């Protein structure tokens, strides 16, 4: 018995986890054809979050336009190498999550938990790097109230950090699901996809924050 696209429960043994119904549903318009990863409600959350960051980006750039030299000088004080390493860390965690989902789908059960662990370790590494980076700035006397650049820096990276903290819990959930798949227990594929999409959003937001804060001159 194949699991219908978008259904919640699928057993790992003897059933196709990746059912792909590319045939348009009755009445489906050109806009609505295709398969929604996870659950539709998740995408309201994801695009809502992205809209929030759109506003933060806009606010940052408006303030930057008022004090360009200040923002350029302060950007030079940030730890570029830590930002670069964090970018690669989050990209690696994202591919690990994608491969964990793929491992569960094609029923190579051993590798699901392994990739999930890799993703989780990358998430923890990002948190540790952020602790080092912020700690160094604060010990150097740089705090959110130092000037407008650092205010926006700490706000944007702080909001992103909150998403990373939530995302780390999501990665634990993903790990749990991959372990269930490894043990041939029922797995919520939609739940797995929801968790994965949320973590990819965290990565997507950082790949914009990094050039905006660290690279823009």
């Amino acid at each position, binding site marked *: 018995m194949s699991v219908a696209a978008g259904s919640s429960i699928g057993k790992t043994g003897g059933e196709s986890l990746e059912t792909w119904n590319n045939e348009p549903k009755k009445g489906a318009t050109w806009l609505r054809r295709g398969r929604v990863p996870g659950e539709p409600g998740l995408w309201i959350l994801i695009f809502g979050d992205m809209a929030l960051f759109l506003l933060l980006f806009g606010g940052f*750039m408006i303030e930057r*336009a008022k004090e360009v030299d200040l923002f350029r000088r302060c950007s030079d004080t940030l730890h*570029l190498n830590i930002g670069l390493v964090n970018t690669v860390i989050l990209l690696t965690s*994202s591919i690990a999550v*994608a*491969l964990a989902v793929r491992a569960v789908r094609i029923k*190579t059960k051993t590798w699901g938990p392994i990739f999930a662990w890799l993703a989780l370790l990358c998430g923890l590494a990002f948190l540790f790097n952020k602790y080092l980076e912020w700690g160094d700035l604060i010990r150097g006397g740089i705090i959110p109230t130092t000037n407008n650049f650092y205010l926006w820096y700490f706000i944007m990276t702080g909001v992103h950090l909150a998403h990373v903290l939530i995302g780390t819990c999501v990665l634990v959930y993903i790990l749990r699901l991959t372990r269930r798949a490894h043990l041939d227990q029922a797995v919520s594929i939609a739940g797995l996809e929801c968790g994965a*999409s949320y973590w990819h959003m965290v990565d997507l937001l950082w790949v914009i924050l990094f050039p*905006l804060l660290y690279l823009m001159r």
Partner: protein
Amino acid sequence: MGAIVRSGVSVVYLVLVVMTAVSWSAASQGFTGTFVIMTVGFGKAFLIGLFFMELLHAPRVLQGLLGLWCVACWAGILAFYMAG
């Protein structure tokens, strides 16, 4: 493991890492550098959305929202950069 790793997302990952290196190398080049890093940045975001978030095969509405977000942010950031 080969069956898992040999997939489009693995290629996309390598492309994303290379794009990261490109934007890092363009960091101190004025407007041209800013244009490059932001275009590369939103290109990466779009690839993450299409391939990692699996929107490539999702309804056009979701793809459109992703594209709209990327274009709106990219254009807004560059517009405010030029105004500064």
